[in-house]
């Protein structure tokens, strides 16, 4: 073995990591090389001294106490930091109450919530009048309404209007969608002109629901009493019917062909008048039973802009989100205000329970 090899393996040798054969070779080399032997002796002495360097180390006496104290303080703080289960339960309860209450407001079970956009809740089953004609004091009153509204979600809102009319027991009699030039002449805004008919007793319901998913800019409701005209027409119809009866009697008694032809012409004329008059009465009956609602729905500029570019769409979407958040928190505030007395009672009860628990805990500590 060379001295170089010996020195290479020296540390493994000192650490007892060499196999027996290598150890023998090292020892044999030492016998023939005093320098390597001295080196090993020197290194061994250093290692021995290092190994025993800290055997009589004086550890500061206060250290032992100090770390234990810190440990206990830490534990105490950790225990204090760790929220007890009842605090978690209280926090969860508060959150649930807030979310639940706000949901109740949004569902309309608590009055005063913001209208829901784009959501249609179908009303109660429509009770149609049993027979045409206004039963109130025998008056014939025809009601009509006109709305001008803006839509943030044009296609959906048009469909919502049609669905709303249907759900109210009515139908759509006209639907036109066209484009209208914007103020900045940059593009067209879509406009829907829709005419629906709904039972008169559903008119208010329809108007209220329309406001839930569109922004109504203008509304106009007209009531027109047509009793006199109706009664006159009804009397006219009775007259025509009486005339028709008389003509039919005369026809039965007619003796000549000329007379028959003349009576037949008159009958045809009277029958036509009866048809027209009866049709008029039916029309009035229908107008009275079903109110006509004309809606002019304009696509809102924000939505139109949203379709223009990604930036504009993102901005519009962001505005919508902000608006939704605002609406949500408004609903939450409404709930809080509505439920304030109950929440106050609940809070007082919880506070009292905590106070009792604390007093009890203190008495146990003493």
């Amino acid at each position, binding site marked *: 073995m060379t001295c170089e090899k010996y020195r290479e393996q020296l*540390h*493994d040798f*000192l*650490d*007892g*990591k060499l196999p027996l054969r290598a150890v023998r070779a090292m020892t044999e080399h030492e016998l023939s090389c005093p320098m390597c032997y*001295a080196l090993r*002796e*020197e*290194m*061994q*002495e*250093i*290692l*021995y*001294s*290092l*190994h*025993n*360097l*800290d*055997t*009589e*180390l*004086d*550890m*500061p006496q206060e*250290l*032992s106490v*100090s*770390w*234990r104290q*810190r*440990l*206990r303080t*830490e*534990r105490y703080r950790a225990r204090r930091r760790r929220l007890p289960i009842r605090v978690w339960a209280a926090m969860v309860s508060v959150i649930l109450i807030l979310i639940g209450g706000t949901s109740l407001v949004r569902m309309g079970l608590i009055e005063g919530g913001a209208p829901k956009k784009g959501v249609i809740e179908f009303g109660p089953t429509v009770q149609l009048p049993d027979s045409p004609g206004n039963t109130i004091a025998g008056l014939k009153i025809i009601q009509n309404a006109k709305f001008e509204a803006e839509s943030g979600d044009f296609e959906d809102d048009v469909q919502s209007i049609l669905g709303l009319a249907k759900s109210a027991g009515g139908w759509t009699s006209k639907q036109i969608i066209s484009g209208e030039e914007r103020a900045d002449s940059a593009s067209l805004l879509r406009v829907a002109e829709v005419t629906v008919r709904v039972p008169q007793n559903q008119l208010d319901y329809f108007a209220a629901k329309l406001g839930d998913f569109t922004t109504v800019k203008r509304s106009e409701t007209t009531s027109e009493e047509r009793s006199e005209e109706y009664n006159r027409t009804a009397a006219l119809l009775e007259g025509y019917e009486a005339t028709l009866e008389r003509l039919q009697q005369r026809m039965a008694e007619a003796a000549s062909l000329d007379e028959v032809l003349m009576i037949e012409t008159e009958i045809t004329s009277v029958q036509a008048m009866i048809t027209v008059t009866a049709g008029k009465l039916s029309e009035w009956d229908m107008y009275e039973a079903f109110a006509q609602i004309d809606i002019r729905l304009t696509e809102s500029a924000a939505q139109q802009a949203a379709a223009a570019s990604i930036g504009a769409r993102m901005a519009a979407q962001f505005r919508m989100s902000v608006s939704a958040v605002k609406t949500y928190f408004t609903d939450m505030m409404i709930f809080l205000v509505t439920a304030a007395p109950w929440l106050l009672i609940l809070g007082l009860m919880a506070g009292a329970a905590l106070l009792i628990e604390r007093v009890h805990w203190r008495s146990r500590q003493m």
Partner: protein
Amino acid sequence: MDETEKLIKRAQTGDSEAFETLMAPLEKRVYGLALRITNNREDAFDCTQETMLRAFRSITDYRFQGAFTTWVFRITTNVCLDMIRRRRIKPYISLELMQDSGFTFSDKSSNPLDEIIRDDLNQDLKVCISKLPLDQRVIVILRDIQGLAYEDIAAILKISLGTVKSRLSRARERIRKMMYRRHGTNLEELNSSRGVNYVRKENHTDDL
């Protein structure tokens, strides 16, 4: 399940008394390790406290893989290295400071001359260790003072076994050269004055 394992399991459930019992035999070694790495008594004091707290906080992470002592030393080493990096502790310290550090190394049974020589030797050794680069110093402390196995050192420092060996060889060689410059033949004198053959303990981790 031995007593230590029971204590560890109890400590893992948050039993601080069990933890204190578990750490009591280790606190001096932790302090010694911290002192050798930081070269400063106050820093070693702080590091020991921090090690204890960290060990308590993370004892649930100990999975009974490897010796508990190694796990504690890993925390100590990390705490000390963190402190050195954070506060940029000077790697070298003066002999005066070392003497002020409360070290005594005396063999009551030996003669006064022997004691003086050995005392001198130990002080020099401490200075030599403190003059080593940090990476080598930590390895010498873990291996030659604390007596950890190469594998444990590699695991603690997250380096390869080969790196541990090479750094250790370099560190020992440096110490030997420094000692030689300082003491010359003192080692031999000490050897002859003792008249003993040193039997180095292979491993004195006496892991819990």
